[in-house]
């Protein structure tokens, strides 16, 4: 039992962090996703980790770093696939809106209610020519389609495999965002002066930051647990571990996004400061692989009921 990053995982983390810092600075991130982003990440082996013999815990480490850097794109959907892929939960309201549609080869549609996984070629989808004018997240363009995606082909993977992997990696990405938001808020609080001292010396601000750190750390422990259970199903209950990870991490990303906005004051409401980009992504991830409500219900379902 070693519930902490191994030496190799620390090296993996540092390597991917160097890649993100070097190749995906915020100036590039703000230009959004395109094929070159996909190519570089694919060349670095991000999408083929499993095929290359890495564990799910390694994949969680990598996706946390992508989230920390807010690297744009349907990165979770591309995991394990060669073709540029996006996807969405077809059981939700608004399922005629598809992220990244005009930039990808394939679209995966999931339907948790019927446990369906289908894949459709993007070119075969009847969609608007241009993306929506005002997407919630400027780095996640969305296309409106005429009607729900048609039949397509059934994927080889089972619904559960796809769902669990997607929830895990999305949660890992959220942990990276939650952690980075904490760092950003702390750094700003130490630098910004009001009443002749850094706002970070006011307890009301310190306590916001303390809570952000706790959220990120609890979420990381949950995600790492889920990754360990993915690697070896005897170490826990997979459904419960996955639900806990996605719930804790999704919530940490959203609440830390809101908290960071507050700590930044008026700056936090500007386009210029990166906080809103993190928060908007966190909101979007609530529509992917189950939101907080879904997973809270899933967790409750693992608890005893009246007999």
């Amino acid at each position, binding site marked *: *039992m*070693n*519930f*902490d*990053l*191994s030496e190799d*995982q620390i090296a993996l983390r540092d390597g991917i962090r160097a890649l993100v810092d070097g190749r995906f600075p915020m100036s590039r991130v703000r230009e959004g996703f395109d094929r070159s982003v996909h190519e570089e990440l694919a060349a670095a082996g991000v999408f083929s980790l499993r095929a290359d013999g890495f*564990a799910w*815990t390694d994949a969680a480490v990598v996706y946390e770093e992508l989230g920390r850097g807010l690297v744009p794109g349907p990165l979770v959907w591309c995991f394990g696939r060669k073709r540029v892929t996006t996807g969405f939960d077809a059981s939700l309201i608004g399922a005629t809106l598809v992220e990244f549609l005009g930039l990808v080869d394939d679209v995966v549609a999931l339907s948790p209610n019927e446990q369906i996984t289908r894949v459709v070629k993007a070119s075969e989808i009847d969609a608007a020519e241009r993306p929506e004018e005002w997407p919630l997240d400027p780095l996640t363009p969305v296309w409106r389609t005429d009607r729900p995606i048609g039949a397509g082909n059934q994927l080889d993977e089972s619904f559960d495999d796809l769902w669990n992997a997607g929830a895990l990696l999305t949660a890992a990405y959220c942990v990276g965002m939650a952690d980075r938001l*904490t760092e950003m808020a*702390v750094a700003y*609080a*130490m630098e910004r002066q009001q009443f002749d*001292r*850094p706002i*970070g*010396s006011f*307890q009301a601000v*310190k*306590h916001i*930051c*303390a*809570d952000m*750190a*706790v959220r990120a*750390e*609890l*979420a990381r*422990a*949950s995600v*790492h*647990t889920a*990754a*360990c*259970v993915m*690697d*070896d199903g*005897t*170490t*826990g209950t997979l459904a*419960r*571990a996955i*639900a*806990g990870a996605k*719930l*804790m991490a999704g919530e940490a990303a959203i609440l830390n996004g809101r908290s960071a906005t507050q700590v930044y004051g008026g700056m936090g409401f500007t386009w210029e400061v990166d906080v809103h980009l993190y928060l908007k992504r966190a909101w979007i991830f609530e529509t992917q692989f189950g939101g907080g*409500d879904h*997973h*809270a*219900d*899933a*967790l*409750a*379902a*693992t*608890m*005893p*009921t*009246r*007999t």
Partner: protein
Amino acid sequence: MDLRFSDADEAFRSELRAWLARVLPGLAPQPARDDWDARRVWDTDWQRQLFDAGYAGLNWPKEYGGQAAPPSQQLVFLEETTRARAPYVGVNFVGLLHAGPTIVAEGTPEQKAAHLPKILRGDEVWCQGFSEPGAGSDLASLRTRAVRDGDHYVVTGQKIWCSYGQIGDFGELLVRTNPDAPKHKGITWLMLPMDLPGIEVRPLKTVLGSSEFAELFLDEVRVPVDCRVGEENDGWRVTNVTLAFERGTAFVSDLVDATRLVEDLAPYVTDPAHRRELGHITADLDAIWALTKRNVTQSARGVVGRGPFMIKLAYSEVCQKMGELALRVLERNVLTVNAEGPFVEERLRSLAFTIAAGTSQIQRNILSERVLGMPREPR
């Protein structure tokens, strides 16, 4: 990263499981809440059984009766005792979880030999005399005086909120030995034999209606100098050792209790909105447990991570959420504390969790300063 236990750990687990299955059915019923003498007997009997079976002091050194077992086995122990619903520390809380560990870390060989085996056997119960009427969050402002007189300190002052004060054999006692030094520099950490002349213990009635803690009045109590842990006037450093155990690891025992409580509450939770809230609480508790595993892994490697600064803060809040859910779910059954399970009582008890062992506000101060590096509060 790997949550798999080794074969040795799994062998330990199956032996422990078999042992628990054998002994638990023979356990006497738990005594009444306010019958402290009976509680002492019940809790220390269980501790003695653990000791005799080789399950006491898993992480304590062998020479003082401990097992020096790897941290993974401490986790197995917690998992299995929770699962089997075995009793947990009870009145041995202070001795096992922070006084003992402080003596392991800071005590002399004589002090270790005198106290550690007795704590592990359940022969010695400890209480904590840190807080004073004027020194709560600002603990270092404490005023209980100790004046050196040959081989003794003569101690006069008042302590408050002393849990297990009525039945403790020894107390962790903080005294001021140098009133002229800055407040953190004049404190000394003493082991107080509770049977010395000049000590008066007055139980205090809590919101539970019973006496969970007491006031201590100390009137020229002569404490042997041998009872000092650490150097004279170096007690604040030792205090921080104690508090690190108290806030970082001691609450794991309560986490075990909370995990059981939420399992017991779950069948009463039927409304979908309440079930959803139960899901959130479950996720929080699972996450705190996961963070505990991380802490254990890191401490075994001598790493002090962020986790120990977070466990109590997170745990105390989720317990209160659970308590509020219980009250809503029980509806009019809350009108009497003993109606359905321990839920109303535990809701009352959990009011203290965000106060005891350092309030949540103080925890957030410490976390933001020591972990995040933000500016310090005036001290």
